[in-house]
């Protein structure tokens, strides 16, 4: 870029965009304030961090089991077989015990993104009670990391969550 363009670029950088109106900031404040406070969140709130237990579902357990199996198979194949013609004394020497299989991958992050929320209308529950059915669609992402070599596995899975929210009617 030539010098005059550079000079113009610097001149433009000195200009500050007009300040955001206070009315607009207040509007956003009101909208965000309408959000439910954390303790009042419903029980079905899903996991967004490792502090919550919900990310540890059957799928996670299944994947962890598969990883443990792969690790075990790897360790077994690494053991040297004792040659068949080895002297009896040598064969009798006990081989050092294999180190206990440690989990290679550790979960390091879990997150979910809500990308669609739809009220699917009224449904009837047992006993003629009314409820509303709400469908929330998420993308869940779980990350495991191997601290030995920094390899990581990221697993992204779509998930639909249907919430049935009881609707009560109080004529008073």
């Amino acid at each position, binding site marked *: *870029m030539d010098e*005059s*363009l550079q*000079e*113009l*670029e610097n*001149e*433009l*950088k*000195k*200009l*500050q*965009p*007009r*300040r*955001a*109106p206070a009315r*607009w*900031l207040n*509007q*956003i*404040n009101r*909208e*965000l304030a309408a*959000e439910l406070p954390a303790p009042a969140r419903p029980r079905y709130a899903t996991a*967004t*961090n490792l502090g919550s237990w919900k990310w540890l579902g059957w799928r996670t357990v299944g994947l962890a089991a598969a990883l443990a199996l792969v690790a075990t198979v790897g360790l077994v194949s690494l053991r040297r077989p004792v040659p068949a013609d080895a002297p009896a004394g040598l064969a009798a020497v006990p081989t050092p015990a294999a180190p206990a299989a440690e989990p290679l991958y550790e979960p390091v992050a879990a*997150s979910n*993104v*809500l*990308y669609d929320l739809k009220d699917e209308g009224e449904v009837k529950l047992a006993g003629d009670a009314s409820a509303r059915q709400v469908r929330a669609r998420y993308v869940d992402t779980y990350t495991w990391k191997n601290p030995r070599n920094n390899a990581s596995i990221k697993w992204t899975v779509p998930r639909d969550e249907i919430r049935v929210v009881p609707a009560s009617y109080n004529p008073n």
Partner: protein
Amino acid sequence: MEATHDNGTWKDWLAAHGPKLLLCARQWTRSLADAEDVVQEAFVRYWRHQRHLPGDPQALLITSIRRAALDHARRHARRTAREEKADGGLEERDGTFEPQPGEDADRRNEIEVALQRLPAVQREVLVLKIWNELTFEQIGETLEIPANTAASRYRYALAALRKELKPACHG
């Protein structure tokens, strides 16, 4: 940008970055009021559902703002030219930039007019690069164009502005 991840500080973050985001949204909307609407929509969505995502929140927000602006434009495509004119259209009542003490107001106005005359595809790249401080890669991702195209649009925009503007008088 980590500040946005802290519940109490979004106001400070938005007070600092809001003007840049509004200027950016203004490139894709027909009025300042529309720009305010789309930035609000994108920011509230980001704060509620995406603030835990890794990465630069500003780049994520700008992408979100652009999508919201495109949706907004689609929803309001039937607005008549008369309504648009009454609303201010592309002619803004207030200027684009904040007046600074001791500055040359004529020069600022001259730059604002010259910016308005730029082709929209060049102006959006210029705004994202100069005032939102995105890299050409990030601009490319936001606008769904190659980074090289973003870089050349930026150079064309600067060259067109230089042609339009007299060199600034210093001292």
